């Protein structure tokens, strides 16, 4: 199983800025070719985690191995195997799309990797017609696709995507998802992406890690995470003109009992299976509650 080949591993990551603890013991790992989504609400510590893995900042505590090396001390050869797509900024506005991508590609020439051809890659990300355009004239979605092209032109073994679709319209978002799928299928690239959008994590990732309050609160495939909250299937009904809601693990048994108890009739019976979205919200909420209790003590 190719995923067994560990590409990325972190344990006990902590990060403290002054008084604030942003990360409080994060453990994660990803195998070769795996697409992992780091999901969490804003301010959960996603960007900080990714920046530690990229070698852009030192954790306050914990160990990190990416491609077998510590990102902080790894050399330029390691850097050449790591693709980084940062949150969007406004740099290089005066450059032409093709010029910038070409310059970035040149940086990878000495490292013996099978680089993308600039024009083929522009085609791949749907920017062929904008090759000569100045970057500041691109739309948000086009700009983001250029960011991705810059991140992958060196054909990295690991790709970090930080909030890749923030601020996208639905069409741009769908196009972008297709692009990530193609990337994951084409090459054996390990992809770690951060997002606060559950639907996005579900569509793109083999595995989802939910980060909240500086710890990983859930880790599993989208299906496994949904199963984990199967206990909270909701049964809704109306009896005597009054609405009732009940959460249960055994919906079938509960409904049998319910109907037996009220032979005079139950109306508007609904059984709602928990979706992963409910699971996500439930986990974040549960985590916030324990947080509050912890603060009271």
């Amino acid at each position, binding site marked *: 199983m190719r995923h067994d080949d560990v590409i990325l591993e972190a344990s006990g990551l902590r990060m403290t800025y002054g008084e604030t603890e942003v990360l409080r013991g994060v453990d994660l790992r990803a195998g070769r070719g795996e697409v992992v989504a780091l999901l969490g609400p804003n301010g959960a510590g996603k*960007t*900080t985690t990714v*920046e530690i893995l*990229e070698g*852009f*900042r030192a954790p306050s505590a914990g160990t990190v191995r990416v491609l077998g090396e510590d990102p902080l001390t790894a050399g*330029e*050869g390691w*850097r*050449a195997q*790591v693709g*980084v797509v*940062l*949150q969007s*900024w*406004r*740099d*290089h506005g*005066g*450059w032409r799309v093709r*010029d910038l991508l070409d*310059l*970035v590609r*040149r*940086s*990878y*020439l*000495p*490292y*013996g990797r099978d680089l993308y051809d600039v024009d083929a890659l522009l085609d791949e990300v749907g920017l062929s017609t904008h090759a000569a355009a100045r970057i500041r004239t691109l739309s948000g979605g086009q700009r983001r696709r250029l960011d991705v092209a*810059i*991140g992958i032109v060196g054909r990295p073994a690991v790709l970090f995507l*930080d909030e890749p679709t923030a601020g996208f319209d639905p069409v741009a978002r769908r196009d972008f998802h297709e692009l990530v799928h193609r990337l994951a299928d084409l090459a054996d690239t390990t992809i770690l992406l951060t997002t606060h959008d559950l639907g996005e994590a579900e569509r793109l990732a083999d595995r989802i890690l939910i980060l909240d309050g500086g710890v990983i609160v859930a880790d599993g495939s989208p299906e496994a995470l949904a199963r984990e909250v199967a206990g909270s299937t909701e049964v809704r009904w109306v009896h005597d003109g009054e609405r009732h809601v009940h959460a249960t693990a055994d919906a079938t048994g509960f409904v049998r009992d319910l109907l037996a108890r009220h032979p005079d009739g139950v109306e508007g019976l609904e059984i709602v299976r928990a979706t992963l979205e409910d699971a996500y919200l439930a986990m974040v909420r549960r985590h916030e509650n324990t947080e509050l209790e912890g603060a009271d003590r």
Partner: protein
Amino acid sequence: MTAPIPTALRAGVRRGVVEFLNSLRSPTDVGFWIVGAIVTVVVLWFLRTDRIAELDITTAQFIFPGLLAVQLLIAATWGVGVMISTEREDGTLLRAKALPHGTLTYATGITMRSLLESAVAVALVLVPSLFLVGGLLDRGPVALAAVGILVLGFVALFPIGLAVGALSRNPRAVSGWGLLVGAAVVFASGIFVPLITFPEWAQVIGQLLPLYWLGLLLRSVLLPENLHVVEIGESWRTLEAFGVLGAWAVVGILIAPPLLRRMARRESGTSLERARQKALQRV
């Protein structure tokens, strides 16, 4: 396969040239230099007949070497400081850092761009002045030494701009304070008023600044030889001038790489975001 360092340097040169050509398309950048050059040339034009009787030259002639030094200060120190702090804020440097040897490529690019801009800044004042103001090249071939002196001046002044950019990530502060400090440095360096007319303590300060020695060297090859009488010690002090300017250059070359590495090390998305939030709060 090619070697990493030469590849990074070549990419940097390319980067600098593209950046320079891009800035030629920016109305703000071009406007800044054109307006500056027009003002300078107009001032020289009005002073071209204004004679300094005891020295037997025109005021225009007398201040011309200083103007070249000031153009270099603006392009190689102030301009570089503003450029780097701007590019730290907008994420250019962070993107560079994500590439193998990216910081080296970036630094090479900045050097290349600043070199080209400095050449243009000097030429913008030099070329029209030669046609409009008489007596500027009375020294003939000796004046060619000014080119070499300006190159040495660049090597001394450029690392200062680099250090300013490496220490601040607020381009508005660098731009505003830079102009004020720059004006003070120009005054204290005796660029337009001979240092010899200053009180002694002010002369000491002036002689610590690289701009004073750059101005002195340029005057020594561009003004009539006998004008050393209005310099300190009634001498051009050529050896001392090369010594002090060279020392600034050597110190700059030595401290620039560690400063750049420190700047690159501190660059991250979260630090950028914090700076951006701060900038937004100010507005």
